[in-house]
């Protein structure tokens, strides 16, 4: 499925839009990490929680559970939330 990458993570992907596979958001992030080593830890912490200033949207709706089931046609957007100056 299509994953839209925010600018702070472009150093990993080199492009704004990438493809990744997985039946859940967690699985998609694992696939992203296989393709772009290190990217997952920048957005998911060691307790498997979403980092404070990172948000995930699936088809325009914000997702809070990494185990959220996904379909191949879904579109994921990773967003950098406000984090101060």
């Amino acid at each position: 499925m299509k994953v839209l990458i925010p600018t702070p993570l472009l150093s990993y992907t080199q492009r704004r839009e990438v493809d990744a596979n997985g039946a859940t958001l967690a699985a998609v992030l694992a696939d992203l990490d296989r393709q772009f080593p290190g990217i997952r830890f920048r957005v998911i912490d060691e307790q498997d929680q979403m980092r404070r200033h990172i948000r995930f949207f699936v088809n325009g709706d914000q997702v809070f559970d990494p185990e959220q089931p996904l379909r191949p046609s879904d579109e994921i957007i990773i967003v950098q939330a406000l984090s101060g100056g």
Partner: protein
Amino acid sequence: MARSASKATTRKPKVKTRAGLPRARPASRTVVLVATRKGAWLLHADAARRTWRVDGPHFLGHIVNHVVLDPRDGRTLLATAKTGHLGPTVFRSTNLGRTWKEAAKPPAFAKAAEGKAGRVVDHTFWLTPGHASEPNVWYAGTSPQGLFRSEDGGVSWAPFSHINDDPKYIEWMGTVQDGTPDGPKLHSIIVDPRDPKHLYFGMSGGGVHESTDGGKNFAPLIKGMQVVEGFDAAAVTFHDPHCVRICPTNPDRLYQQNHCGIYRLDRPGDSWTRIGRSMPKKVGDVGFTMTVHPRDADTAWVLPMDGQTVWPRTSPDGKPSVYVTRNGGKTWQRQDAGLPAEQAWWTVKRQAMSADTRDPVGLYFGTTSGEIWASRNEGERWTCIARNLSEVYAVETAELG
């Protein structure tokens, strides 16, 4: 051009002889490694340390807490970084910052058991190269307090020792509310140059700790250290060492700048002596940083700050000065020649002052206002060598051969 893979001198400990102090190393090139809230810079000196070439920013916009050159190979740089959005990581360069590669496995706490709350590294705060006999070993301290070790030159990191999960240590670490404003920290990781198994570290808060068995066991080393009035000095959690340093030529001597004064400890003794009592009363002995002389264990420098009333943490009276002791803390002398005479309200954070190994020793510090100040003569006169950077978190020096 210092970007080439130059070979740095290895800092082997020298023993102070009766005849006098160990000799300084032959003239080499000094590089000052600056970590700031908005990136890192490398300042390269000419042979005389008179002119400086600025290389950077590296990691523009990243919060960089520490940049350290490996003195054992003279070319490997490690930098800790995070951004406002992204999690914490470590970058590694083997060509003095020309290119960087991210660590494959940055410091991270162990995953908690199902149903239990685990800890999360907010940022890696401190880096210490391992002992000269352990060439690829590095240690890292994090916020919140955690101790990590790499055995492959900083590529992969693992939790180290019992302290990250020890209930007693977790209690001593306190909560986020007990720590410094940007998070409680484990810092001042020290490896005894005579023995790789002899380790120290400090925690803000949580005291100074020592291991003599390579980290299998750590124990508090807080006797003689004071705490804020009204609290119990016997309680480890109330202790706030800001910066602990070991003397390279006399590793039995430690100095410490604490939230509550300046201290010295001579081993095998286990009781810290508050040598800051001999500082001028009007200035006091509160500060973040402390730096030791590379060859003379009686000489150390501090940069006092205002710790009165609401704790402004600025230079006292807006008149910054370094203070030096040449006799182990019996007396102190003010060294402010060249520094602003008034209306300078910055301070210097705990790892933002450093000494080179030249003769006379060069001193360097970075301010919360983004300036780098240098002295080529052990603090007698200061010159601003960079300004308008961001808030400086760390200043380290390295000698390139």
